[in-house]
């Protein structure tokens, strides 16, 4: 009996040792990657935060605490109001969908309460934004709006066009391999060189390709990359502020962004389509489902993990986008194409205000992080993993 106990204890010890060895081996395997991430990923972020707390221009100046951040927000109170507004918007959406479920007329009550909270959140958010706009850095806040325009202009279009192209290429059409390659080409073309080609296509010259196409429809030539006025204004709709929409110059860059990334999305969607079991389609066909039904009720839900991934990557990418926007921007377009990445770059390399630039970069980083988390929460719940 005692012998058994000793054997059992020894066996447990051995198991523990093996487990420990396994743990150590695991850590050793991830150690090189961890070191690289710490040095090249985490350390720069930490150092940027450190720099943002100093009056760091050409040389490191005195410690100024939160002053570089206050230049952006005007005051912490402004930020607090804005964040409270966002918090209420989130709360409102939760109330809308989840509150009073146990009550008889709970859904109706939830919708009423949710709507009230949402409206209150919207008003507080707008108030916070207005206060920030009044006393904070207008250039930075404008650049956020431009960035949002750019993201909303490119990501949904890239997703929709990518999905449609992938669906077409997934069918049995002749030369689909060649088409796959053609669609993928823009993605692997260096963005600088393709942006230069777009510069020529969307030149404001009367004889530019874009203007020649317009001329076919009897339209007057446009200034494209040089046009700072909002597209809606050019169409005769006089709306100002955020509702004015992107400038024609930004739209040109959006077109370039879509052209560049749609091929990548297509290829990823194609791999997603390949993973959907054929039997499901066959069963739906036997049940009389039309092509549209099959697409809408099978394809869309089954590739939702891919859509989620591409949307997430797309939004992060658009908020960080730099190269092609830098190449395609013109002085004439003014700040209508200055996204936050460009603004930070200018502040860093042209004004040499490293403290201010790093503070702006950190704020951008936090926004991207927040958006990623929000997307993860909102879209992640809707993803169908089979």
């Amino acid at each position, binding site marked *: 009996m005692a012998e058994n106990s000793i054997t059992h204890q020894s066996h447990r010890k051995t198991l523990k040792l093996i487990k420990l060895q396994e743990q150590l081996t695991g850590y050793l395997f991830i150690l090189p990657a961890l070191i690289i991430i710490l040095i090249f990923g985490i350390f720069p972020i930490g150092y940027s935060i450190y720099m943002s707390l100093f009056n760091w221009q050409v040389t490191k100046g005195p410690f100024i605490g939160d002053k570089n951040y206050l230049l952006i927000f005007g005051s912490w109170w402004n930020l607090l109001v804005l964040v409270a507004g966002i918090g209420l918007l989130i709360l409102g959406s939760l109330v809308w969908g989840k509150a009073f479920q146990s009550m008889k007329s709970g859904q109706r009550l939830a919708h009423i309460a949710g709507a009230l909270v949402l409206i209150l959140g919207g008003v507080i958010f*707008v108030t916070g934004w207005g206060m920030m706009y009044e006393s904070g850095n207008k250039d930075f806040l404008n650049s956020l709006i431009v960035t949002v325009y750019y993201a909303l202009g490119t990501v949904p279009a890239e997703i929709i066009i990518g999905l449609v192209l992938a669906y077409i290429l997934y069918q049995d059409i002749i030369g689909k391999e060649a088409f796959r390659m053609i669609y993928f080409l823009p993605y692997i073309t260096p963005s600088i060189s393709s942006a230069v080609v777009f510069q020529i296509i969307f030149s404001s010259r009367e*004889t530019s390709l874009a203007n020649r196409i317009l001329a076919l429809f009897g339209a007057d030539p446009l200034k494209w990359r040089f046009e700072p006025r909002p597209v809606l204004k050019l169409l005769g709709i006089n709306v100002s*502020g955020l509702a004015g929409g992107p400038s024609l110059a930004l739209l040109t860059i959006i077109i370039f962004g879509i052209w560049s990334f749609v091929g990548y999305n297509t290829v990823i969607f194609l791999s997603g389509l390949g993973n959907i079991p054929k039997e499901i389609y066959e069963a739906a066909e036997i049940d009389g489902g039309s092509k549209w039904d099959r697409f809408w009720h099978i394809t869309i839900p089954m590739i939702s993990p891919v859509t989620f991934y591409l949307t997430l990557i797309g939004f992060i990418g658009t908020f960080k986008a730099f190269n092609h926007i830098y190449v395609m921007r013109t002085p004439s377009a003014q700040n209508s194409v200055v996204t936050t990445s460009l603004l930070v770059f200018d502040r860093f390399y042209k004004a040499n205000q490293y403290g201010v630039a790093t503070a702006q970069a950190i704020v951008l980083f936090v926004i991207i992080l927040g958006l990623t988390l929000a997307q993860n929460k909102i879209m992640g719940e809707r993803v169908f993993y089979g």
Partner: protein
Amino acid sequence: MRRTSVLFVAVILIASLVLGACAKATEAPAPTEAPVKTEAPTEAPVVTEAPTEAPTEVDPWADVVPAKEIVWWHQHTGSKREAAIAKIVEDFNKTNPYGITVKAEYAGDYGDIFNKMLPILNTPDVPDVVVGYQNQVATYQLANAMFDMNELINHPKYGLTKEEQEDFFPGFFAQDVLSLFNNQRLGLAPNRSMEVMYYNMDWLKELGYDAPPTTPEQFKEMACKAAKTPFSGATEGEASPIGYELSIDTSRFASWTFAFGGDMFDYTANQFTLNSDAAVQAWTFIQSLFAEGCARLVTENYGDQTDFGNGTLLFSVGSSSGLPYYGDAVAADGTPFEWSVAAIPHTTPDPVQNVYGASVSIPKSTPERELAAWLFVKYYTSADVNAEWAKASGYFPVKQSVAAKFQDVFDANPAYKTAFDLLKFGKFEPPVPGYDFVRDNVIEPVMTNIVDDPTADVKALLDQANIDANAILAEQMAQVK
């Protein structure tokens, strides 16, 4: 669920619209703040007086032995320029009596060099000689990182003689003396370019003129006539003719402001003067050209060269370094026309031409390295070497005496000779820290607003630009300890 989403989106949309209403549209700004004064030195930049007597104080350089090896960071590429640089360095290394060896290193373009310099200022890692624009060097000097050449330029043994100093074109020589830093000399010019007006002489003749314009009124008359009267030699039929194409570039802002008798900077008060009367007149003039259909914006990079070559553009204003490219553009399709360059039409008695170019500067290191670097800079900017370098690089030389050695170049390229004769009228853009930011973020947006909107209030726009530019300058100068 769908209804839920629609309602949710509707709420967000309402919020967005309210937000939109809060965000103000960009409008011509009215001045909102008084300009922030930068500490002003007491004197305007002056060409350093060469001394006539030996200094009475102890010579700090008497016991300094020049370093044996120094490094020069430059941006020059292309086989011709690289070969010229290599020869200049080789000759110096062979002939200098101090046994100094210069190692010339290509360190990227101007921007690359600037970005490489910033983290190593005031460390032993700095190169001994570095190429840089005056505003870049001014930025380095915010950290007190550059050697003041005034310490050596008049030195009896190592300095430049009075004749050597006076041989520089005055504008070029004064350009590296920075009023913001107590008139320290932070560089010496080895070459320069200049803004000139390119014109199509054959077209002018067709329009009934026998010479290019010298005044803004003549310029406008000819430009407006050209916009209505296509050139018979035009090769791109679909493009409409135009008198002038403006590129949104601060150097154009400077050129036209100078031509109207103004300046962009007050070197006594050390403040931008973007809203001077001359600037307002100049940009009201340019605005009128656009309003009357006589001018338009350049449509793509170097689009003015293309249009000029195609015979659809009568006048263009740009750098003299573009001379060969304009020549190529004119000759491109085999139907060349007579063209040349002239001074930018001016309201002043003499022309006033915008000159620019990078200089060679010496970062602070040790006296031995600084002295060796200075001796190389002195050699590099000497008349004979300067002539050699100018011929190879295509830039203008900085020494007046070089003209005698340039007859072959003048004979081969009359336009170059015309431009060369204008060098003595050179004036420069502000050599101040943060100037790149002012160029891109203040002046160029204002230029766009002026030409885009014929009703824009030029004075109000320039007033606000001046406030913004001086605020940026004050931010920059706040770094000086």
